[in-house]
């Protein structure tokens, strides 16, 4: 099953994002991003594989600084 990878700008954003998703019933994990994001640098990604659109919407609404989104 593919997962959504939401690349964020900092570990604090990653932790906040994970908490938001989990508070809304979406299991999420944080990992170090394997690529250096263009225009950003190194960072962290939040991975989840359920309710993908809802999850992204929740993160955007909460103001989590999203650097990129990919399906992996």
């Amino acid at each position, binding site marked *: 099953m593919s997962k959504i990878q939401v690349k964020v*700008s*900092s570990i604090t954003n990653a932790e*906040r994002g994970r*908490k938001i998703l989990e508070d809304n019933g979406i299991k999420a994990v944080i990992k170090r991003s394997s690529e250096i994001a263009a*225009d950003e640098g190194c960072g962290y990604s939040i991975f989840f594989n359920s309710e993908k659109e809802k999850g992204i919407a929740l993160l955007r609404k909460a103001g989590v600084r999203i650097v990129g989104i990919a399906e992996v």
Partner: protein
Amino acid sequence: MSKALRVYGANPGRAGHKMAMETGKKVYEARENIADFFNAPLPDCVAFTLNCTNALNYAIKGSIKSGIHILTSDVEHNSVIRPLEKLKKDGIITYDTFKTDTADCEKTYKNFIAAVKPDTGVVVCTHASNVFGILNPIEKIGKFCKEKGITFIVDAAQSAGILPIDIKKFNINYLCMPGHKGLFGPMGTGVLISDGTEPLTTVIEGGTGSRSLHLEQPSFMPDVFEAGTQNVPGIAALSEGVNFIRKTGREKIYNTEKEHILHFWSEVSKMPYVQTYTELDGINDFSPILSLNVKGVPSEKTAAYLSDNGVYVRAGLHCAPCAHIKMGTEQTGTVRFSPSIFTTKEDINYAIRLVKNAPDFFKTD
């Protein structure tokens, strides 16, 4: 702290291995804990600093534009006055002080209003004097500042964890505090909470583990104020300190300390050879500390006598010359008593006996 040294020994926000991720989570939990305690909008609004002085420097210097007028109180610690004095000497700002009343916050507020100028852009003041316990009416000042679009910075060094502080309700833009006083954390920790305001400029720039391709410091909280490696063991311990306050009850801590100081003051203020500087009879709220002097005895000598007998206090100017100038104690300093939740009635009574016996020791009248 010792657990943190062993278990959370990796740098958070830098690597992706298990220990780094666990450490990042621990630090975030500390942010959540403190954000909740002070009603900050988000955990991200909580930045960890070396101490309150650092936090105040970041907040003050991050809030100014050239030519701005700053208003502060006449009982400030050097962590507020020295940055202002430097900025003034460099020709960047002007600043004035408003008079705090030793017992009546309404009078203080009127003095504050009278001191505001059309070009006042920042108000920075202590919540409670670290020498005399005098309060500034920060809720009312915050409301005024919000209405006028003035940035409001609070030094909560002597009140965080003891007096109620709600960053949203009090309209505070930056709330600064040390970890090692009322928050029961270790020395070498401090907190700077923003209401979401981002600083106009930064004081220290460096690695944050974020936006690392950019040569400019990130502008968002908390990274903007957290250049370099954080004191993770300190942060973990600070969060446990806040948990202690939650478990014990902030009000219980305050009432216990207040009771100790009122009892202490009621006895020592009757002694003719003791000079106290605040009238606590009928006072509603104050930070539970008491400054005094044994008449004719330098404050450091009194402190040494107390220390030799097992009572540890601070004497001298407490890094707050303005407060001492206000109260006329800049030549003598004062002896400051500061009980805690762990202080017992017996401890207070013992301290009272020592003060009572001071004339015999110093051979004064």
